[in-house]
């Protein structure tokens, strides 16, 4: 599937989508009227407004502004934040690093727990299966902001064991990471269980058993290898969901990462930051799904050969 030509076409499509995304963000932010008037909210003289409009180029036709915006966006320049006057791109990158300190451990822990648990739940039904599914249903139903508040209530307020907001020592990471893990844990456990159950009912498993392989070998070499492949794809595609939950979790725990930045930018109409953030997320999501497709091709010989 992923020969050179197909892959090149996928990259072209991804770039087209990214271009559309940036254009859309530009026009949406211009739809609300003149940025200068809106940002100053009548707080300064009309003459100064006019001077600012001229300085920022808002008096040019919208097409000219759009062209200029695209030219700068291609070079990764989305302008300066209207709040802090730092370049929007640098702000976004700095904050993403802070977010990754939560996101990466959460993701690794989720995979380490969910894949064995889901596989066990499929192979050995009974108590483990029931436990895994009850846990999955719970974590799937409790939205991350409520899960975070519950953790704060029990471990922070009632028991007083853990700090509940901001950054600091290692103990500051525990509750936000645990909250971030909630929904993905449910999702991956269910997914693994479904995949493994499905693989268990395949013909090749019956063949493997029939030729007398030990059950552990059947599971390890035939079932798991086939069942876990699609999960690789999901991990890449899931970046968007992960960013979404990071926004919420950071808000709950006042974690100064990317999510907090986006929410602040939205509340203060900091368009350069919103545009830089939207572009970065689009880039991450599209790259993630491309890499996932590519990895899938590498891991699955059947697809590689096609």
């Amino acid at each position, binding site marked *: 599937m992923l020969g050179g030509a197909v892959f090149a076409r996928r990259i072209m*499509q991804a770039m*087209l*989508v*990214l271009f*559309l*995304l940036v254009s*859309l*963000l530009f026009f*949406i*932010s211009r*739809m*609300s009227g003149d940025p200068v008037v809106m940002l100053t909210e009548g707080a300064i003289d009309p003459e100064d407004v006019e001077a600012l409009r001229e300085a920022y180029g808002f008096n040019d036709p919208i097409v000219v502004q759009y062209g200029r915006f695209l030219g700068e966006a291609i070079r990764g320049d989305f302008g300066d934040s209207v709040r802090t006057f730092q370049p929007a791109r640098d702000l976004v990158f700095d904050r993403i690093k802070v977010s990754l300190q939560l996101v990466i451990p959460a993701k690794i822990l989720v995979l380490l727990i969910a894949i064995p648990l889901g596989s066990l739940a499929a192979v050995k039904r009974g108590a483990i299966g029931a436990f895994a599914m009850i846990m999955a*249903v719970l974590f*799937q*139903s*409790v*939205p*991350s*902001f*409520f899960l975070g*508040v*519950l953790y*704060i*209530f029990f471990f*922070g*307020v009632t028991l007083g064991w853990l700090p509940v907001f901001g950054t600091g020592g290692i103990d500051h990471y525990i509750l936000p990471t645990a909250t971030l893990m909630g929904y993905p844990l449910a999702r991956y456990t269910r997914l693994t269980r479904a995949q493994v159950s499905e693989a268990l009912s395949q013909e090749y498993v019956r063949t493997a058993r029939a030729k007398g392989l030990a059950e552990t070998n059947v599971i390890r070499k035939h079932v798991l290898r086939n069942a876990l492949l699609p999960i690789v794809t999901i991990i890449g*595609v899931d970046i*968007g*969901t992960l*960013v*979404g939950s990071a*926004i*919420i979790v950071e*808000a*709950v725990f006042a974690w100064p990462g990317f999510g907090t930045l*986006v*929410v602040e*930018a*939205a*509340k203060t*109409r*900091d*368009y350069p930051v*919103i545009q830089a*953030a*939207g572009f970065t*997320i*689009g880039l991450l*999501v*599209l790259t993630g*799904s491309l890499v996932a497709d590519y990895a899938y091709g590498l891991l699955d010989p059947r697809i590689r050969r096609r």
Partner: protein
Amino acid sequence: MANSPIDLAGGGGGGAAVGAAPEAFQLSSDRSRRYKLWNHRYVIGFIRYPPAAFALVIVVFFVTMAMLGPYVISWNPDKPDLRSALQSPDWNIAINSHHILGTDSVGRDVFTRILVGGRVSILLGVVGATGAATIGVTLGMIAGWNRGVIGAIVMRWADLQIALPLLLMALTIAAVFGPGLHILLILFAVWFWGPYARISEGLTLSVKNREFVEAARTIGATPPRIVARHVFPHLISPLLVLWSFSAAILIIIEASLSFLGVGIPPPTASWGSMLAEGRQFLHRASWLAIYPGVAISLTVWSINTLGDRLRDVVDRRQYL
């Protein structure tokens, strides 16, 4: 069960049934198996699974209270009453003289506000998911029927929705237009139809070369008629499952936005904003945060459970 001609719908969050037999995929010439709108056997089969029955009760409760709430409850959900601020829950059947779930920091009845918040959440979930489904199914069927330029445009736009997740798009829109119910409804419909379009496109593709479509074309049916009368019925069951899950997601997203302070503007109650407010009083009035959270979780659990059940009842291979 999976092979029996069973199909269900949660019409308006309730639990009406719609028939679309899996066999219809193979046997559309069999006119006796028309899609039935109602068959009590399906409903009984559906609720025989206790969690699904319980989930149905919860959804029906919230929907009923959303509609009848103002006639049953006399507390004003938005009017502050500072003298009775932060009263703890007072369990009593007389809901109009006791604050059974306590009061918030300005003395409003928490139970009343949860019911009112449920109205907003369920409205947004149901109407948003239905709007998204309408747009997505229409575009998806067009794209599947008429591949080429139109199909490419539709599918790239769907990609765009994945590239910028709904929550981020909602934050951007809130920045430009300010928060509000109507904005959210429109946004949910125009930025959440991607999954519907994908499923509809795929199924339309798989159905459009079958004999019954050929037959319809031979007797002179126009493409819109073929798509509406012969293709669309095959999409109903998988779409209903997707519809229930997307309603749950939209409810979570609305609550998340309100929690962040960019969803439903105050003083209108919303589960998300109630939770955000209650968070500040965790140490002395934990009920303020706990009960709205429980309401969201129960609702989401119910809708997911109904959706899962729906998926078990409809053969899941049809659309995966």
